[in-house]
């Protein structure tokens, strides 16, 4: 799901940075402020876990693979802004040290996988949690993956329309390639991962857990 450097033109990456930068500042001020010390060990551990689950490739038919994102969990526990901040850190490390994604496309990837997806998942969870807690978490994580994949597909489709020399694949093809594994596999596994992790965390009753 990571868009690599060179696939998006500055006409898309620069506005994305303009949107992401104030949100990063707001998220850091809100979640890394004076009262954050208690939550930091849990948030750090969940961020590291998100990094690890993103390195696990799930094979899907068609000779490709997909992966979890793992930050819907953070959005449910601490809010979508912290999920955005943590996913941005994960994406930055992946771009700088591991060749996944890229620095020019960091804001686009972070907005899609770190904000829009987890925001949708958080909203679904909030809406349904009183009726069915586990189902709400599962559905929230599933929706989060579809929104993130859809957002990446839309950006790539837009790029193809405005400057196909950056991304030569038409929207219909890239959207299918992104959404089919997400709908059929990744969403379900992300849902399962989120429900299990939430249950284990709540059972552990850790200090600083929201």
């Amino acid at each position: 799901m990571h868009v690599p450097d060179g696939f998006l033109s500055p006409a898309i990456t620069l506005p994305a940075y303009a949107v992401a930068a104030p949100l990063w500042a707001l998220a850091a001020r809100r979640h890394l402020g004076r009262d954050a010390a208690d939550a930091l060990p849990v948030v750090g551990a969940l961020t590291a876990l998100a990094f690890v689950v993103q390195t696990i490739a799930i094979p899907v038919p068609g000779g490709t693979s997909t992966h979890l994102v793992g930050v819907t969990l953070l959005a449910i526990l601490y809010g979508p802004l912290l999920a955005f901040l943590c996913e941005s850190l994960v994406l930055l490390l992946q771009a700088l040290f591991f060749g996944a994604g890229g620095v020019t496309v960091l804001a686009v990837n972070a907005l899609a996988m770190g904000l829009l997806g987890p925001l949708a998942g958080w909203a679904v969870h909030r809406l349904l949690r009183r009726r069915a807690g586990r189902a709400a978490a599962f559905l929230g994580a599933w929706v989060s993956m579809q929104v993130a994949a859809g957002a990446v597909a839309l950006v790539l489709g837009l790029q193809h329309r405005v400057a196909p020399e950056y991304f030569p694949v038409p929207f219909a093809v890239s959207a299918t390639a992104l959404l089919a594994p997400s709908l059929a596999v990744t969403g379900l596994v992300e849902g399962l991962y989120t429900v299990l992790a939430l249950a284990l965390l709540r059972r552990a009753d850790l200090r600083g857990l929201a």
Partner: protein
Amino acid sequence: MIRAAALALALALAPGAARGHEVLHELAPGHAAGLRVYYADGEPLAYQAYELWSPSDPRVPWQKGRTDRAGWIAFVPDVPGAWRVKVVDAGGHGLDAMVQVPAAQGGPPAGPGAGFVLRPLLGVAVIAAIFAALFAWQRRKGARS
């Protein structure tokens, strides 16, 4: 129940563990075979469609593509032996020939190596260090105020 489900999930993901989703690359000098196609007058068959078959599977092409501007086809053989190459130009000219790849050149690609296990660990270590520093900074700030 939760533990059993967690174990099942871990087992399901285990085969793919420690493999990055990112697309990597490596430059391996000396591994590729280069084949140049040209007309009798030395004019290269530039940008022409070609297909290439490995002796390990003569039915499915190993590689398809177009020659480069100088008429070159480059490929990395999986096995030595007689490789079939077919180049067709738009005007109906072309080539359908067998080329011999020496034993020194053909071989399976190298595995991913230990880096694929170490990379997630390195990422976790960096994230842990960042949050530990943040935690220590917050505690110090809290102790002062």
